[in-house]
Structures are given as C-alpha cells and as structure tokens.
C-alpha cells in the first residue's frame, strides 16, 4: 500500500486531502464529521477580526452550471467569511484540535490590511493549537470591496507586507492563499516568497457571473432583483488552477516553494494531477459541498491504487514529477510530427471528427470512401492538431501517432527530422538565435 502520509511545511496529516476554507469548515460540527469521514486536514473557514461579525445575504448565496443530468460542473458563491463570533470559532478550533491531534487544522485569516489587526489576531489563533495559518488574499466578492481578500491579493506589495507581519508575530507556518483574479500569478507568488511565506495555496475563486435570469434580466444568484459577481469554483475551474500551480512551480524565482493545490478537485485523478504539477497537498471544497464528506474515501483509495499500480511508494515519489515537462511554447519540438489514426473497429461512424475537421480545421478526414460512410484520416492533409481526438465520443477510437524519425510526412513531403528543433532557432523566426559559426 502506498504511503499517503503528508508533511506540508511541517504540518502533518494522514493524507494529502484537506478541506479548503469554506462553508464545510465553518464550525466544529462539520469539521468533526469531516475528520470522521477521513479528511487529512481542514482549513477553518476564514476568521475576521474581533467585534461584530460580518453578515451574509439572506437570499441565495450560490449559483451553478450543470451538465444534462444536473451534474454540477461549476459553482459560484457570494458568501463572505465566517459570520460567527471570533471567540466561538477559536474555542471550537481548540477543542477539535484536541480531539483530533493527528489531523491538520489550519486557521484562515482575513483582517484589515493594518499591522495592528494582524498583530492582534495571531496570538489568539496560536493559542488554539492550530498547526498553521492561511492568509485569505483571495476572496473576490464582498470583502474585497472593503479592502480585504482579493483587494490585497491583487497588490503584490501588500502581500509581501502582510506576510512579513505574520512571520514576525507568529511561530506558526504561514500559507498565503492567492487569488486567480490577476494577469500573472507569478507576481503575487514572488511577493509572498519575498515576505517570507512558508507556502502558497491556490487558487481561490474566480470572479464570475454564473448565469443570468432571462425572465428578470438579473444575474444569478438573484437577491431581491439584483445580483453581484461571485467566486467561481468546482470542476470547471480546474484547468485554470492547474496552469497557475504549474506557473509557480516552474518559475525560477519561486521554484521549490511549497504549494497547496486548490481548484475543482473532484476525484483522486484531479488530486494526482495537482500533486505531480508541483503541489505538496491539495484542498477540496466544491466536491464535498456537492456530494458530502464521504468522497474523500474515493480520493484516498483511488490515489493509493494508482500509486500502487505505478510503483510509487509515497507522495515524494510523485509530487512535482510533471513540472520539468511543462515548458514554454517556444521550446516545443517543431520536428515532432504526429498524425491522427482512427481505429475502424472502434469507430461508431458518428461523423463528428469529419465535420469538425471539414468545417473548422484542415479537411483531413474523409466522410465517404468508395461511396460508403467511412471516416479515415488523410495523412497528406493532417497537421496532427488533435481536434478529432477531442470531439470523438468513443474513448481511444482516435489516437495521435507520432511519426518515427526518417518516416515520410505525406503532408510536407519531407522525412521526419530526428533532431530537436524549436521556434527559437526556426528560420521563420526573425528573432531566431543563430547557432555559433
């Protein structure tokens, strides 16, 4: 059995699956249930400063998009940080940590961007026995209008400043949670590192209007006739999150900085993808909110089975393994040539590959051969774009087959060059670097 024990910036948990700071981690009742179900850790729902708690809307807080069978694909929310009293939360956190010493318990914090505010709350949190803190610089709605959350996360200088205060006023490990609502995720990650953060976690939710009520001409969720943008999460955001995680993982300035991966993780496979792209562990929210805490059991067993099947012993064997294979476009091998190949036995003759290629790509797939409905790749037209593979409804029916060096590429009429060559040296590139004479 693969060893799933996780050590993230010194915080230990029996598995790498944490619940992200969100409604599922709002109070002891939920967190106890989560731990019973098997979650390795939780990031407690974001604490605000002492005083009257924030208030939430009393109408709908969530909107969603679905597949045909109401399978939830994306969720958006306009809920704020915890609306419970600070001391109630702290008391419960302390009790839960005592009850579950082997699980990770992290406090998410969001207070005004002033040194005194951070200096005041950190000792209170530390006293609970929490294993670490996560700085909520991501929340894109509501709190950001008050100069907190994403309003901080969008200004690298503020990130660096707050992280520095936290490192100064607490011994607890600091995880800086980043907002994706920026143009270059590397900037806030570098700032967090400059401030001395122990790790970053990402992504927080994405600014979004999930849908529009066409009868009332108002965004969903509609609260008394009006709506506001919310934070988007769930399976739909995973590709965006994966890219941002990889960007930080391979950035020379932040290379090696621990990352807690977040964003649409719904299955063990999603989690594995985040881990191999450089995450030290993962956080989950929407999947739990959709299916309940039990899903962690699928994640644990699925990850474990895959690791066993592949001979990976522990998380160190897999974390970051895909990072070296993420590169810039300019370094892709332009001499690599692949052609689509259709398995005629698997083909159900739906014709989607043909029409996709015919209407929108390279006119490289037949519809009829000798008058019979037959879909076949014309290698002299195929550029290997992979669109047919993606639109084919049958798994593994169409595959991309790389041409061996020396084989004739029927499209160009030239044999495949065995040498690696990329855009930086390509003759069509006016900026091409000439090899030294």
């Amino acid at each position, binding site marked *: 059995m693969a060893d799933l024990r996780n050590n993230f910036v010194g915080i230990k948990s029996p598995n790498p699956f944490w619940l992200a700071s969100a409604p599922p981690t709002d109070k002891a009742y939920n967190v106890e249930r989560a731990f019973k179900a098997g979650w390795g850790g939780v990031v407690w729902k974001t604490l605000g400063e002492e005083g009257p708690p924030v208030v939430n809307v009393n109408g709908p807080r969530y909107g969603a998009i679905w597949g045909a069978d109401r399978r939830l694909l994306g969720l958006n929310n306009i809920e704020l940080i915890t609306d419970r009293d600070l001391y109630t939360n702290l008391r419960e956190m302390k009790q839960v940590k005592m009850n579950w010493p082997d699980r990770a318990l992290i406090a998410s914090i969001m207070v005004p961007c002033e040194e005194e505010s951070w200096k005041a709350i950190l000792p209170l949190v530390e006293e609970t026995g929490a294993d670490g803190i996560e700085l909520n610089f991501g929340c894109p709605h509501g709190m950001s209008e008050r100069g907190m959350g994403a309003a901080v996360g969008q200004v690298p200088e503020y990130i660096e400043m707050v992280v520095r205060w936290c490192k100064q006023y607490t011994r607890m490990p600091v995880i800086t949670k980043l907002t994706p609502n920026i143009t270059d995720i590397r900037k806030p990650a570098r700032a967090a590192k400059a401030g001395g953060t122990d790790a970053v976690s990402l992504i927080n939710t994405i600014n979004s209007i999930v849908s529009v009520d066409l009868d009332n001409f108002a965004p969903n969720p509609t609260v008394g006739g009006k709506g506001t943008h919310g934070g988007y999460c769930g399976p739909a955001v995973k590709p965006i999150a994966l890219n941002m995680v990889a960007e930080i993982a391979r950035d020379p300035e932040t290379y090696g900085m621990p990352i807690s991966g977040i964003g649409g993780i719904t299955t063990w496979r999603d989690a594995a993808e985040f881990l191999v792209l450089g995450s030290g562990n993962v956080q989950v929210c929407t999947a739990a909110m959709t299916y309940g805490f039990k899903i962690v059991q699928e994640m644990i067993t699925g990850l474990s089975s895959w690791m066993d099947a592949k001979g990976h012993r522990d998380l160190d064997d897999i974390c970051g393994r895909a990072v070296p294979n993420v590169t810039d476009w300019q370094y892709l091998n332009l001499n690599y040539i692949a052609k689509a190949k259709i398995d005629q036995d698997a083909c159900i003759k739906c014709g989607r590959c043909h*029409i996709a290629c015919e209407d929108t790509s390279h006119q490289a797939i037949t519809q009829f051969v000798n008058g019979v*409905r037959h879909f076949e790749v014309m290698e002299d037209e195929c550029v290997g774009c992979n669109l047919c593979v993606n639109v084919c*409804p049958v798994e593994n029916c169409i595959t991309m087959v790389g041409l061996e060096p020396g084989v004739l590429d029927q499209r160009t009429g030239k044999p495949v060059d065995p040498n690696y060559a990329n855009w930086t040296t390509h003759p069509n590139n006016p900026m091409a670097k000439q090899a030294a004479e």
Partner: protein
Amino acid sequence: MGTTQSGIHRGRLAPAEYETNFSDLHPRLDDHEALVAADRCYFCHDAPCMTACPTSIDIPLFIRQISTGNPIGSAKTIFDQNILGGMCARVCPTETLCEQACVRNTAEHRPVEIGRLQRYATDVAMTENKHFYERAARTGKAIAVVGAGPAGLAAAHRLAMNGHDVVVFDAREKAGGLNEYGIATYKAVDDFAQKEVDYVLAIGGIEVKNGLKLGRDFSLADLTANFDAVFLGMGLAGVNALRAEGETLPGVVDAVDFIAELRQAEDKAAIPVGRRVVVIGGGMTAVDAAVQAKLLGAEEVTICYRRGKEHMNASEFEQDLAASKGVMIRHWLQPKRVIAKDGHVAGIEVEYTEMRDGALTGTGETGVLAADQIFKAIGQTFEASGLGSLAMSGGRIVVDSEGRTSTANVWAGGDCVKAGEDLTVTSVAQGRDAADSINRMLAAGAQPAFAVA
C-alpha cells in the same frame, strides 16, 4: 368481478384493470427525463438516423433543441418534415428505423430514445397549441384528396400550405384512417388521433367530407372533372381470407375490425373477448390484436404464424411486447380448419409447415388448438372500384417516384400504392411528396408560356 368462463364474453376484468391495461404504453418523458435522454445524442454529422427516417426528419437538430430547453423549436423541426410527427413518435417501429441506425447501438447497444424524444417535443407543442404554418396566398386551385389517413392528411396539409383549396373525402365517420381505427389503443391514448387531425386541419383551407366512399358515392372521373388535381390515399379496405374450412363461423373475426372496435369503445369492458384466443398472422396487426385480447382478459392467447420468427413483419419490439403480456407466439403453423361446436368456434386445426425447395409447404402433421375466438390478421387487400383505367400492379396502384399515377393529374400514396413499407411514416412521406409534386405541376402551369426578357 370479472369472469374466466369459456366462450366470448365482455367484462372479464375488474373495471379498474381496463384502465391500467389500456393506458399509455410509453408515457411522455418529463422535462428532466427528456434532457437526460437528449444528452445521449451525439449530434452526428449527416446522421444515419436521419437517413433512416422515411420522412427525413432532422433528428440531431430536434434533439439538440430539446437539450437546450427549446421543445417548441424542436417540434417545428419535426413538423417541417412530418406534420404527423406526433403519431409517428407513438407508432413508428423506431427499432427498425431511426433507432436502429443510431450510432449509440455500435457504441453500447442502446440507441438514443428518438421516438420518445419526438413524442416529448411534439406533445409540448400540441399541448400548447403552437402552430407553425400559415397558408400561402390562395392559388384558386382545388385539389381532391381521397382518404383522411396519414397519406391523405400529410398531402392535404402540404397542399393547403401552398395556398390550394383541399377537399378530403373519407369513407368512415371520423378522419384519421388507420391512426384512428387501426392502431392499438395503448399506443394512442386520450383520443390523440382526433387531436392530431384537428391540429393538422387548423392550417385552414381543408374541408373534410366524411362518409363518402370512392366507387360508391363518387368515381375518380368525377374528381378529375371537378378538381385541378387528385391525390388517392385510401389505404386498404379488404382483408385476406384464411382459405380454411369454417372461416365464416361466428367467433372468427377480422383483427382489424376488433382493433377498430376497441379503439372506438368508450368502455373497453363492453368489448367481448374469448377465453382462449388464436390469432392467425405475423404482422403488427396480429400483435396488436393478440396483446389487446390478452389485455381484455383472455386467459390464453396464441399467435400462429406460418413462417419463422425471422420472417415476421411484427418488429422485434412488438414480439417482445406480446411475450411480455403473456401472448404465446408459435411459428411454422398454418390454419387448416376451424373446428365448430354447437355452431360456434371451438378450436382450430393447424398444420406444421416447412420450407421445401424454396416454397412453404405443409408437412402433413396437424394438431388442434382450443379457441373460442379466432382473429384473422393475414394482411389487407386493396378494394378498388371507381378508378377507371388507372394502372394497377399486384393489386395496388402504380406510381412513379413522385407519386404520379398513370392518369393525368392523379397522384397516389400510402398503403394503396405499391411502394415502400406499409408504415404510417412511409405514408406521410408519400403524401407529402405527392403534394409537392402536385404543387410543382400547378406552379408550372401558372407561369407565363414564354419568358419575358
């Protein structure tokens, strides 16, 4: 309540059982079921299902319209090709047409439920009384249509759409043809056939004259003299004989009459049925009669077909339906003699058959099946009269690819012509296409004789 006594009796079941037995075979999908079913469609390019549909409905498009919450647009896509799409959704043997061609069969042996999705969309539109077609400006041309069945109604609708005035003559009391009289009750509940007739006629410009029969009340010559064009779609009125001794005994019944009577009966309990029923035949009519006999409370229902399972005209689905209702289907048996007792049917002597030198031959081995009632369902015949010199072949009207007969300005379609399968959907296609052909002819005639440069 109910009775199992031998002989032919009504009220074999408790009243509530009739309602259950004759309720909708496949109830309409609800909105969510329709979304889930529609999601299975791959939106194939040049879709095989569409090619397999005799009326060439754009199936991928109508299903996609359902999946995007646009059942009204979906219904229009269907009606554009087939104005009787509602009935076809109920009675088409989809498993041998569109659903057989569905690529999902190759993938997972389960096609998209095209028929039920078509029912869903057309039901939504018809329930909301959405009409999509308006008549073109009146052309002043008058067309006679004989027969208000699927072919005649489809032709009449298309002709009216093009601005012609249409008069439909039908021999029976109600319009609808086999949709009204020839389809099992559980396939078209809630008087659907009449609702559909009303829906089709709502376009205007179509007058239906009931109780008028070609050959009895008027002749084809009368029509050609008084109308610009004629469409013949009167179906098949005759029934093949058993050619077995005792055929005229009380208790030997035409299956089509039984089916019609049952359809028209307000109270199904009023329809008598035997305790033991034998149905002779192997087509849809045989199955419809056998299943409904069973549903009326017959204790034992046996279909006897003189060839093998693979030769049956009833689709696989229909055969399974019959089996699921407890009907026994027996093959390679042909009727030899109806056995009487006290002047009434008591059984039927049957003979085993086999294929010998390419011909169906009795083996000489016989047996007797006890029966109180025997249904004849061995095919219908065209009873032609009043057609003048119209060319016929094999007992049916000869038409060309556009539905033109040998007589000028006379078209024909549906079961009375010798072309295509004897399906509702085929008749609709033929009626529609003949109407287009008529329209082209009339339009050509309306043009000036020479071009004005």
